[in-house]
C-alpha cells in the first residue's frame, strides 16, 4: 500500500446521494485505476486515467464518473448512489515503465449504500 492512500476507508450512505472517493499517490505514476470488487466477480475496472485530464471507461463505468486534475489525485464519483454500488473500491497505480504495467493497489474503500 506504500505511496497510495484512499479516503474514506469506510462509508455508509443512502440511496440517491452523491459520493466521492479519493485516491492519492505520492509515486508520480502516470496511470491510475478504479476497480470494484464483489464476491463472484473478482476485480472489475470502472475507469482509468493515463494522465492529467485523460480518462477512459472500463468494464463497469455506468453510474460512475472520474476526474484527475493533478497527477497525484484521482477521484471517483457516484452521482446518485444505488444499492448495487455497495462494494469494495480499490484504486491502483502503474508507472508503466518498460512496458511492464504491474499495478500497485491502495487499501480499499468499503462503501455501503442503504
Amino acid at each position, binding site marked *: *500500500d506504500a505511496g*497510495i492512500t484512499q479516503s474514506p476507508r469506510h462509508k455508509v450512505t443512502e440511496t440517491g446521494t452523491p459520493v466521492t472517493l479519493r485516491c492519492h499517490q505520492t509515486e508520480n505514476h502516470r*496511470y491510475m*485505476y478504479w*476497480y470494484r470488487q464483489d464476491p*463472484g*466477480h*473478482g*476485480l*472489475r*475496472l470502472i475507469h*482509468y486515467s*493515463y494522465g492529467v485530464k485523460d480518462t*477512459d471507461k*472500463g468494464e463497469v463505468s455506468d453510474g460512475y464518473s472520474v476526474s484527475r486534475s493533478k497527477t497525484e489525485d484521482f477521484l471517483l464519483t457516484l452521482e446518485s448512489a444505488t444499492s448495487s454500488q455497495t462494494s469494495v473500491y*480499490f484504486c*491502483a497505480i*502503474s508507472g*508503466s515503465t518498460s*512496458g*511492464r*504495467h*504491474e*499495478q*500497485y*493497489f*491502495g*487499501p*480499499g474503500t468499503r462503501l455501503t449504500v442503504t
Partner: protein
Amino acid sequence: SQQGEEDPQALSIQEGENATMNCSYKTSINNLQWYRQNSGRGLVHLILIRSNEREKHSGRLRVTLDTSKKSSSLLITASRAADTASYFCATDDGPTSGSRLTFGEGTQLTVNP
C-alpha cells in the same frame, strides 16, 4: 467478461505442501501477472511473466506460461500459514488495452498449520 479464469476456486493444504493454481485466458496477451490479496487488504503484485517467456521464479514462487494453451500456473513451494490468501491472475492485453489489466475471480488458498 473476465479474461482470466482461475482453477481451483478454493484450495486447502497443509503447511509444507506445495500449492498449484491455474489460470486460463481467451485472447493474446502482452504479459500475465499474479497478485495476492490478504483478507481485507489491497492486492499485492507477485510476479510478471512476458508472453515470450515460459517460466519464471521468484523465491518460493514458480510461474509457467503456455501461450499455445492460453494458460498459466502459479506454484508455491513449501507453503506456510502466512501464504493463506486469495491469488489472482491478470492479463495485460498489450498496447491497445491502454495499460489495463483484466483480472480473474481468484483462488482462495488456505494453508493449515
